[in-house]
């Protein structure tokens, strides 16, 4: 439709006003975000290119990519060792925890979706651990896992079985860490997936039932595809969160046995401000980890999108 000059001018005015409005709405957030997040972020990024001395700021000097080179390639060095062992342990955790952190909430959400009696109470109970702080969680769970007197082991003994050294030997150390993580964090995913399930048109189910489809078939061909958007969010956020794991391996198993559960964040933290601080290395490790996470997320998104389209 042809607009008169008047109308055109008014429209331009409106668009400009829209832009100004947008900036007005956006600016408080952007200001705070830039000042308190972007600025420190770039500051940190810059630190990674320096030999940064926490105690003697004058002795800080620029070293370019040295820190990165050391952690990625200098195979005799201690930081190389910390980085790669930490990364390996983090990856182990991610690979083994994420499937459970997605499947278990999915199953629980599906059960709740059938709306049996008291489903709201069940939902509260299952979500409750998610509001706890890490220290409360560890406090409670450490006692469950102890050998010689832990709750689980005392039950095992009563059943006539042998005790399991949950916190001090593999693979039980990992199993304990993952179990606690599931208990603590699966609530968010359960809620997201549950909401997604709720939005699926029930008539689809009825149609499938009339056609004689079994529960499994219905789930596979109707539920899952409809759940795709939620699954995408859940999978990506869970992977990202798992990369940053810190509290559970640190407090539950102290990174043991024999440093086998010492994840990358446990190496980064003390290097950032511990007694042997090397902030340059710490930030180089953090940035490297971030890069890896971005790559993993992109790959994930591509795979899921492709599956979704198929």
């Amino acid at each position, binding site marked *: 439709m042809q607009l008169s000059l008047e109308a055109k001018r008014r429209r331009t005015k409106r668009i400009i006003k829209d832009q100004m409005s947008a900036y007005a*709405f956006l600016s*408080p957030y952007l200001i705070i975000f830039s000042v308190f997040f972007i600025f420190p972020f770039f500051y940190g990024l810059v630190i990674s290119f320096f030999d940064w001395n926490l105690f003697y700021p004058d002795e800080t000097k620029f070293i370019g990519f040295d820190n990165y080179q050391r952690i990625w390639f200098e195979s005799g060095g201690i930081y190389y060792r910390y980085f790669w062992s930490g990364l390996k342990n983090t990856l182990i955790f991610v690979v083994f925890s994420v499937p459970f952190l997605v499947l278990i909430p999915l199953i629980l959400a599906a059960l709740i979706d059938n709306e049996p009696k008291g489903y709201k109470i069940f939902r509260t109970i299952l979500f409750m651990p998610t509001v706890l702080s890490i220290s409360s969680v560890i406090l409670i769970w450490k006692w469950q896992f102890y050998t010689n007197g832990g709750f689980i082991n005392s039950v095992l003994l009563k059943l006539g079985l042998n005790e399991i050294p949950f916190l001090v030997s593999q693979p039980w150390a990992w199993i304990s860490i993952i179990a606690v993580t599931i208990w603590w964090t699966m609530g968010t995913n359960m809620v997201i997936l549950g909401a997604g399930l709720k939005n699926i048109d029930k008539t689809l189910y009825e149609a499938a039932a009339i056609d004689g489809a079994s529960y499994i078939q219905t789930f596979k061909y109707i539920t899952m595809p409809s759940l795709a958007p939620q699954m995408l969010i859940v999978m990506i956020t869970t992977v990202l969160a798992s990369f940053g794991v810190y509290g559970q391996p640190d407090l539950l198993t102290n990174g043991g046995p024999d440093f086998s559960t010492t994840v990358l964040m446990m190496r980064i933290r003390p290097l950032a401000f511990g007694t042997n601080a090397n902030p340059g290395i710490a930030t180089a490790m953090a940035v490297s980890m971030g890069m890896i996470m971005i790559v993993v997320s992109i790959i994930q998104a591509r795979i899921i999108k492709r599956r979704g389209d198929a």
Partner: protein
Amino acid sequence: MAIRSVQNKRKTISFIALLLISILWLMPLVWGLATSFKTPQDISSNPTSLFPELWTLEHYQGLFSRPDTPVMRWMLNSFIIAGSYTVLYLIIVSFAAYAFSILKFKYRDQLFWIILSTTMIPTVINLVPLITMTIDLGWFGSWLSLIIPGLGGVFGMFLLRQFFLGIPYELVESAKIDGLNNFGIFVKIVMPLSKSAFLVAALFAFMGNWNDYLWPLIQFSGVDASMWTLPVGLSKIAGTYNYDYGLTMAAAILAIVPVVIVYALLQDKIIEGVARTGIK
């Protein structure tokens, strides 16, 4: 009808499964609760039993009676700080989410995804610059440091943006035709429709700020105990090598009670709220 009985069977199976799992799920919490009511001797001799032999309030009393650990004051402080934070957070973040969803401007979506992706780098490296900044601003040790820097959080902004995207644009258009400006649209159209999303964002914002530990700890390092938040204060009650399990467990339970209550009350709205954000 055949379908009805199948549905009923599913409900029964679900019920049984959920019941068993919930009992398992609750046990650690029940244990924690029980420990907080056990006498120290009971804790040593029967650390794993789920029922105190003798119920005692001594740990909770200890928390509230020691003069160097004003637990009630800490809870109040945490409430004020987390509460102010949540209110400000909702305002600032919802404005931004509105801009990123309903309003139109150049590079809108690219800017959004850039912001989102910067949050993938672990924030531990932000700590030192942030400390310097709060010192330079004169906020070091004050509650402002616990409230303002976190207002740029991404999770709530993401949540609300997704939700706003789900609002039918026709409503916005007809409001525009009716002559509402952007602010009017936000207040009269978007906000009323998004109550549940706001509740979700509020809950996570409150929870995150309430449970925050390391940052407040550093800020409070030179500050009188009466100004501390609850997690910081509670961490100083338990000795490092002189661990009082009953006391620490009581402290942990105390720390989570407010958040659990808030969650239990808002449960339904939260689920509904998250429902509309999950869809893209």
